[in-house]
């Protein structure tokens, strides 16, 4: 079993190191995002004569957002790559099970997330002198909870891909942005209109970003919020897992050779 999970990690590792597109994910996009939002934050701080302190929360928000964005995107694009390459049959005619495949993909995804976070932290430090690790050990549960939501969405999109194939492939890149405003990455909950605040209560990531701002302002973490976030995540993960399972079953009924 472990050898098969390792096979999937190897498969995506090679796909990453052989592709300039994948490698730019580590440097180019973090650099662009951090530069744009960081400079915007710096401008707001200067314009308000230091009355509004947003640079740290914007930069920290962007680095943590990668935990959602990258996990969802990499997982969905991982499945898409198999469809583009017509490689599903090679994988699933081997002894590997769909659970082992998914676990291998998630583990590789997690390794890549750590690399991407380290790279984004370094860029933030170089550009703005912001030390992401000043948040301390709380970074680990923050990233874990955010990655769980990214995986829920990634698994849901993978389920859609098995059902509708590449006809809906653009969702792999776009679905996450529907959740971005309600995740409260860049602003607190009160900024949203009332209906948006209600929606955000059902989005697990919103609790993490609220706590992130609280910690940056020197407050204590409210654990009940993170537990609520975990509970919501487990509900979403369960739903997306069931959807993925039924989609894969439907794909097997059509034949994996026809999914591309």
């Amino acid at each position: 079993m472990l050898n098969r999970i390792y096979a999937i990690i190897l498969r995506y590792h090679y796909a990453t190191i052989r592709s300039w597109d994948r490698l730019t994910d580590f440097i180019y996009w973090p650099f662009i995002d951090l530069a744009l939002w960081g400079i915007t934050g710096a401008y707001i701080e200067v314009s308000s004569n230091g009355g509004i302190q947003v640079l740290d929360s914007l930069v920290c928000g962007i680095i943590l957002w990668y935990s959602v964005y990258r996990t969802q995107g990499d997982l969905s694009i991982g499945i898409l790559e198999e469809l583009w390459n017509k490689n599903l049959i090679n994988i699933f005619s081997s002894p590997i099970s769909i659970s082992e495949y998914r676990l291998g993909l998630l583990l590789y995804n997690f390794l890549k997330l750590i690399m991407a976070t380290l790279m984004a932290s370094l860029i933030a430090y170089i550009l703005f002198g912001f030390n992401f690790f000043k948040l301390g050990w709380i970074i680990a549960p923050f990233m874990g909870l955010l990655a769980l939501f990214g995986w829920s969405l990634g698994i849901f999109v993978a389920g859609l891909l098995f059902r509708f194939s590449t006809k809906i492939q653009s969702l792999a890149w776009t679905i996450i942005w529907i959740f971005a405003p309600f995740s409260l990455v860049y602003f607190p909950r009160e900024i949203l209109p009332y209906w948006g605040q209600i929606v955000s209560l059902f989005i697990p990531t919103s609790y993490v970003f609220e706590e992130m701002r609280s910690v940056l302002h020197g407050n204590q973490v409210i654990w009940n919020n993170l537990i609520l976030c975990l509970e919501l995540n487990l509900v979403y993960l369960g739903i997306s897992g069931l959807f993925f399972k039924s989609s894969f079953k439907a794909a097997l009924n059509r034949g994996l050779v026809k999914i591309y």
Partner: protein
Amino acid sequence: MEKVLNVDSLFKTFGDFVAVDKVSFSLKNGEILGFLGQNGAGKTTTIQMLLGVLTPTSGSISFLGKDFSQHRSELLEKINFSSTYTNLPFGLKVKDALHFISYLYKLPDRKKRVAELVEIFNLGRLLDQRIASLSAGEQTRLNLAKAFINSPSILLLDEPTASLDPENAQTIRDFIIKERREHGLSVLFTSHNMTEVEEICDRVIFIQSGRITLDDTPYNLARKLDLSTVRLLLDTDSAPFQQLISGSGIQIERIGPEISIKMKESEVPQFVNSLVNAKIDFHGLTVTRAGLEEYFFKDRPDNSGKKNA
């Protein structure tokens, strides 16, 4: 011989379309079984079900005496396949693909096995090339290396030599025969190349509109047709020859400078004897027994009574 694959009443529909209609057959240990049929007959659909990448509507599949649906992972350690219809990831290098695939199976020495296959399939100079840059023939060789990576007991080959030049195709056939002889490999083999099928297969089954319509050895099938082709060079306008064929019902076909005559095998000696007795000057006589090609694609009426194209 012990059965390593048993397919019983396999049935698959896509909506109202019946793709595979209660197909039953078996593969014996060390046997190379030709699985033949025209495009769309149901060969690839059947093979996909045998690989577990397509769920049958009904019916059962067992490998090595074990039910496939219950022992999928265990059985797939001993099975592999190669098909012209699938690809390995284009962005990877050849060595990457072989490396990651070797980890999908339990292998005692992965490095050694990969090195052996690189040697056998002549992939050495391609190891650092991206799969996208390989020619069709090179990709086929890589697919075959992938198919042998777990030293399978049962191999499903879907037109494995379709993109290969004659020399490489012969190398692959020789390797399959060697694996059968030395390791008791059993093979289900589809091909449109009937000469290849005759050379390599112990038995053939023919699928037509999702149903198995024939199951026999290539030799027996060809004998059932009882047809030979006589080819020779002679002056067809000569009076003795015209006299010989007039009223005999012999149909002559001109192929370049030669003539070709189809007749029953038992009639050939009598025909040659008639040429000699009539003092007809002829050269380059060849007699060819009808093969599978003639049987399946030229002379066998299908179910509707029409000749197959």
